[in-house]
């Protein structure tokens, strides 16, 4: 079964450093997303991406965050200057128009 793959699975970074989380969505999907989940809390939407541009973003997705689809397969989330409160599991997801949204295994980000 096709799956969404994410790297790295776990990253520890110092406060103020830049982090890039990478995702390979399912190949025929058109919509891409990033969500995050702070430990023990619910899953929160960050951003959706369609047709090579951001289609929607949440209030969490401020100027410190950016997304990119640098080629035909990768989808990245960059956090420019990490803060302690950015520590969370970051999930990439993808979907075809109108059906199941598939989530990757997640990238654990720990900011120290």
């Amino acid at each position: 079964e096709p799956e969404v793959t994410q790297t790295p699975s776990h990253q520890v970074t110092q406060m103020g450093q830049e982090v890039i989380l990478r995702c390979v969505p399912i190949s025929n999907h058109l919509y891409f997303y990033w969500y995050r989940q702070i430990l023990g809390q619910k899953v929160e939407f960050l951003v959706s991406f369609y047709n090579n541009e951001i289609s929607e973003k949440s209030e969490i997705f401020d100027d410190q965050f950016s997304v990119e689809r640098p080629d035909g397969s990768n989808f990245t989330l960059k956090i420019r200057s990490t803060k302690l409160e950015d520590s969370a599991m970051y999930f990439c997801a993808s979907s075809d128009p109108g059906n199941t949204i598939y989530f990757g295994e997640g990238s654990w980000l720990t900011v120290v």
Partner: protein
Amino acid sequence: ELKVEQNPLFLSMQEGKNYTIYCNYSTTSDRLYWYRQDPGKSLESLFVLLSNGAVKQEGRLMASLDTKARLSTLHITAAVHDLSATYFCAPGRGGSRLTFGEGTQLTVNP
């Protein structure tokens, strides 16, 4: 702003028993998803409910959607230990964000 309420948030039940998890949401959505999450793991898609009155079943789980009442239910039949996990509902619109509930942490005891 869409608000999603799940209840109960914590559910401890015995094997073999039945129970229902409820998901209420505040504004119109054209679909509703149910996901399962094991500790430290990703979100596994269980059901996508696309229309009013939709009912889907997979094994011991059955989900339904009432868009007029803005209510979805996840019914567990004859629970087994393997169903222990956190279950999230998430209403949304096609191609748009999902808004997740707080999750229902289910523990099935022998």
